[in-house]
């Protein structure tokens, strides 16, 4: 398993449109991908839009991404990149 911790930097956080990007990207990988908010003790399935939205991730929140499967390295790189670029949104 691989773990990456990222901070959400875009102004709107993991709102619906950003969550859709995250879910679509996650679904391209065979690995199981979980998102955890250690501050609230909540975990979500990164391949389910409804699960991701219920994490209530706002700007500044740290999310731990746990990836398990044979394409872990590629998934980790792609997801880290998506978070680092703020889901392609302006930093409001």
């Amino acid at each position, binding site marked *: 398993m691989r773990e990456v911790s990222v901070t959400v930097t875009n102004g709107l956080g993991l709102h619906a449109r950003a969550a859709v990007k995250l879910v679509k990207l996650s679904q391209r990988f065979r690995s199981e991908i979980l998102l955890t908010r250690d501050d*609230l003790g909540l975990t979500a399935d990164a391949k*389910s*839009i*409804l699960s991701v939205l*219920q994490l*209530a991730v*706002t700007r500044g929140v740290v999310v731990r991404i746990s990836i398990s499967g044979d394409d872990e390295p590629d998934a980790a790189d792609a997801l880290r990149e998506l978070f680092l670029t703020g889901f392609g949104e302006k930093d409001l």
Partner: protein
Amino acid sequence: MGKVGGVIISHGQVGKELQVAAEALVGELSFVTAVSIGWHDDVELARGEIERAIQRVDSGRGVLLLTDMFGGTPTNIAAMFLRVNEVEVVTGVNLPMVVKLATANEEVSLHDLAKEIESQGKESILRAGTLLEPRRMTKDA
């Protein structure tokens, strides 16, 4: 095997707009449609519209009717179509319920999906403050 079909039945255009919003999130939904029932619509006409909508989205896996409010006319008409393993009705439709229907896997039965969507709808109603500002809410949460 296709997916379980869905018809969102509401007072006014609420159902259509829920479908549009869900499609913006997850892409086009060929197996979901909406029926709007106006305040003054004739019950027999509305019933015919729902019947045709069910036929449009039915691929043999059954059809789930999502209605806006228990006790309202859309629900009462929808309930006329209840048939075990063919048509189920879940009331109080909200956007997460439509998204759940849209993203359901193909193996799930109509009966199980109806139960999952009922749960999803209830779980999706949250007092946002308890999640968004947990520290401030601890006093009276």
